[in-house]
């Protein structure tokens, strides 16, 4: 019998995620930077301890009681007075479509969070973070948190999208010195891109579509990151 290599690392994660309840948030700002992205800035009545990388659930309820809820990553730093969510409008997405098409400042939205204690970074250790498409959203929260703490040197970033317009917050990532790969221009992130970022990093984050996350989590390991130090967030179509 051959021993299976065990990739444990941070398992189990620290219990940082406290129980949460639904609350009604007020929409303060709505930005639609592209034809597919909407950024909602929400004022919450109750804020709990929040970490960069976590997500919130948004619930829509019709007048007949029909409800639909989806999880969205937070793009704002924990220090932000408002909670910012960045949502990609998916075709046929009953929640993302509503958030893009209908929501206006002054509206109320039911939300719950923050949720997740695994894909989080508190700025205390050097990290490498890799995001594809809207998978960069939790990385924006990490970058903004790092800026607030004055430790942007601890966060090495690589972001990818078909075009620049497919990468939310691209200007902020560029300004922070992120490696930017545009697959439409023939640049697909691989281990060679990541190797210079991994040196000295104690934790790695990969967020994106299932295919992206699979490829880049393997690339991170190939570039020298111990498998147990890699934390992955995959998302599929969850309109």
């Amino acid at each position, binding site marked *: *019998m*051959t*021993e*299976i*290599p*065990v*990739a*444990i690392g941070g*398992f*189990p*994660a*620290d*219990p940082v*995620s*406290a*129980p*949460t*309840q*639904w609350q*009604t948030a007020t929409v303060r700002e709505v930005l639609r930077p592209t034809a597919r992205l909407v950024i909602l800035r929400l004022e919450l009545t109750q804020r709990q301890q929040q970490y960069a990388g976590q997500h919130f659930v948004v*619930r*829509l*309820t*019709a*007048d*007949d*009681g*029909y*409800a*639909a*809820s*989806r*999880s969205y990553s937070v793009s704002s730093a924990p220090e932000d007075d408002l909670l910012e969510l960045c949502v990609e409008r998916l075709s046929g997405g*009953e929640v993302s479509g*509503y958030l893009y098409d*209908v929501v206006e400042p002054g509206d*109320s939205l*039911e939300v719950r969070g923050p*949720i*997740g*204690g*695994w*894909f989080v970074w508190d700025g205390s250790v050097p990290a490498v973070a890799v995001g594809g498409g809207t998978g960069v959203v939790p990385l924006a929260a990490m970058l903004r948190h790092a800026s607030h703490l004055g430790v942007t040197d601890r966060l090495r970033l690589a972001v990818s999208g078909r075009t620049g317009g497919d990468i939310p917050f691209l200007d902020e990532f560029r300004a922070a010195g992120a490696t930017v790969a545009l697959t439409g221009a023939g640049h697909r992130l691989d281990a060679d891109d990541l190797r210079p970022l991994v040196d000295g990093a104690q934790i790695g984050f990969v967020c994106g579509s*299932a295919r992206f996350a*699979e490829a880049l*989590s*393997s690339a*991170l*390991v190939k570039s020298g990151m111990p*498998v*147990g130090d*890699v*934390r*992955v*967030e*995959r*998302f*599929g*179509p*969850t309109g």
Partner: protein
Amino acid sequence: MTSFTRGFGGRARRERDPRLPPGQYDTGDDWPVLTAEVTPHFTLEQWNFTLDGLVDQAKTWSWAEIQALPASDYLGPIHCVTTWSKFDTHFHGISLDVLLDQVTIGPEAKFIMATSTSGYTTNMGLDDIRGGKAWLTWEFDGKPLHREHGGPIRLLVPHLYFWKSAKWVNRITLMHADEPGFWERNGYHDHGDPWLEQRYQGD
């Protein structure tokens, strides 16, 4: 607390399938992948499965030993906490009852912790994995389970949200008291019944 959302008509409500638990939608032919760690590589020949904890004697089965036991199938839905459900799935594997029948379970055993080769853990009640409710499974729709879906072998507990169906499972530990596993420490419910919408701690 429920308030109506301005202008939200809920376009799916008219053709809502009664097989869908509250807050779920039908993902159709898709099968979204959600895992928190790097996908492990191993073969079934390298793998074995252990039942330990509150049993008279811990027992470990090799893949060859598992294959020699009677197999069984699951036909039905699966429900993910991220709100997708998938109907008419067909998994092939072995009922956990067959394995549990080969050990003597301590009368004080009430809960279990499932552990994967990746280090992933998830907790459940012992009664959630016996009585025809749980399997070790290695085939989906007649084909070997794909790695990203937990292949070569995973736990299947379809009456609970799917994070309980630990991918790459290789150990189940019987316990007296409930202890949170990986997602359960990270905000998700200890039981996870989709019909009761037990998604998060506090539900």
